[in-house]
């Protein structure tokens, strides 16, 4: 399902990152960084994640000089059970709320829902936010850090950060131009330590459908950027696109998981992951590049492994999804 939008603009973004991201190459693009530890003054990882999300949306409201009542809809999702970080974070906000879950593709799911609502004139100002926290995610999906499990090179490192974007129907420099909703793709892979391989086929399917539905070639975009495939998943996607769809995207393709860290120098294995990974890169670095007109058309394709530990223990394979959202600089 591919849609184009006429009246959806990006008003502003807010990004807050943790210490590992602050040590990475994109530090100067974030609005704020927490560099002391990963607790942010809270008692647990989960509470730290909630604080991060509240802080991100508060920063966004402050930057755009809007109050709670000016926002018609807030869409948010995260990695915790029952998307509890979002649910608990917005108790103190006076904004209508929709909670969503698409693992690491949550930000794009939110963008699509928000764009459709704004384009359909159902709302004027809509915030889409997401958050992830390395330690909270480790506890939720893998093992607590105290367990000290060694991980293979192909594993990714969950990004600690919060990212929010404000969509509006008033004209600004950047607009959301098109989107494609992904399908759940499951190729039978069972390796939780190689999410890049799990998600690459989903990303490939979505990119291919997006481009063919809109009759475009990969070079229509200045940059095609996937969510969190990591350095191995990135190679898999390029080869997979060539082999299965006969499409070469290697020229203008990159992956947020490899952009957010110095993958070779930092202790992050194959690169970053988590819903905040793609959202942080897209809303900070890519957004600013577009504001400066260094990039004019960008296709962001956040990728998510819809992996449930319960189903994994019952020996099920890992489903994956990717949604594509096209951003464009508005020519004056």
């Amino acid at each position, binding site marked *: 399902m591919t849609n184009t939008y006429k009246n959806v603009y990006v008003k502003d973004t807010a990004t807050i990152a943790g210490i590992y991201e602050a040590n990475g190459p994109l530090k100067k693009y974030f609005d704020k960084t927490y560099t002391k530890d990963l607790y942010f003054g809270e008692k647990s990882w989960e509470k730290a994640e909630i604080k991060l999300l509240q802080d991100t949306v508060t920063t966004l409201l402050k930057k755009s000089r809007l109050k709670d009542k000016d926002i018609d809809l807030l869409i948010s999702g995260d990695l915790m059970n029952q998307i509890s970080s979002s649910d608990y974070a917005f108790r103190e906000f006076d904004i209508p709320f929709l909670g969503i879950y698409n693992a690491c593709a949550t930000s794009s799911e939110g963008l699509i829902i928000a764009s459709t609502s704004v384009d359909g004139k159902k709302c004027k100002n809509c915030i889409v936010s997401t958050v992830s926290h390395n*330690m909270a995610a480790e506890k939720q999906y893998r093992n*607590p*850090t*105290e367990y000290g*499990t*060694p991980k293979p090179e192909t594993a990714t490192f969950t990004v600690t950060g919060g990212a929010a974007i404000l969509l509006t129907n008033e004209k600004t420099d950047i607009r959301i131009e098109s989107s494609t909703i992904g399908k759940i793709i499951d190729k039978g892979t069972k390796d939780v330590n190689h999410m890049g391989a799990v998600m690459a086929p989903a990303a490939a399917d979505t990119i291919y459908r997006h481009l063919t539905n809109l009759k475009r070639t990969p070079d229509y975009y200045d940059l095609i950027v996937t969510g969190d495939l990591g350095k191995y998943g990135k190679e898999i996607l390029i080869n997979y696109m060539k082999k299965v769809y006969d499409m070469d995207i290697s020229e203008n393709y990159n992956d947020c998981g490899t952009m957010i860290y110095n993958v070779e120098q930092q202790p992050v294995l194959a690169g970053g992951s988590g819903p905040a990974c793609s959202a942080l890169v897209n809303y900070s670095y890519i957004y600013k590049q577009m504001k400066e007109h260094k990039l004019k058309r960008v296709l962001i394709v956040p990728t998510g492994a819809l992996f449930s530990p319960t189903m994994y223990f019952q020996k099920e394979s890992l489903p994956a999804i990717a949604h594509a959202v096209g951003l464009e600089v508005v020519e004056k």
Partner: protein
Amino acid sequence: MIYINSFLFCGVVCMISQLILDNTKLTPGHVTSLFVVIGAFLDIFGIYDKFVLYCGAGAIIPITSFGHLLIHGAMDIAGEMGPLGLAFGIFNLTSAGISIALVAAFFLSLIFKPKH
């Protein structure tokens, strides 16, 4: 000689577990359980007792020793009490280890907080 034996035995156990971790999808939890079971089996005909005799601490420290002690304790008490002794004796030799681990874990968790 016992020093060399000890070094070699413990080293071989660790090498096997590292090989398993590097080449299979098993987790440290699997490997630990596997070694407990292997240790228990090696109590048959007193094989593990021989290792302890010749390798000393090298055979006592790895987790295989835990499996060996489980069966050893159970069999000892079973000899005195009959089949019910299996249940009474299973933690006979290992109870000190388990209790210390529990108490130490409790106090350490009070003092320390996980960091990144």
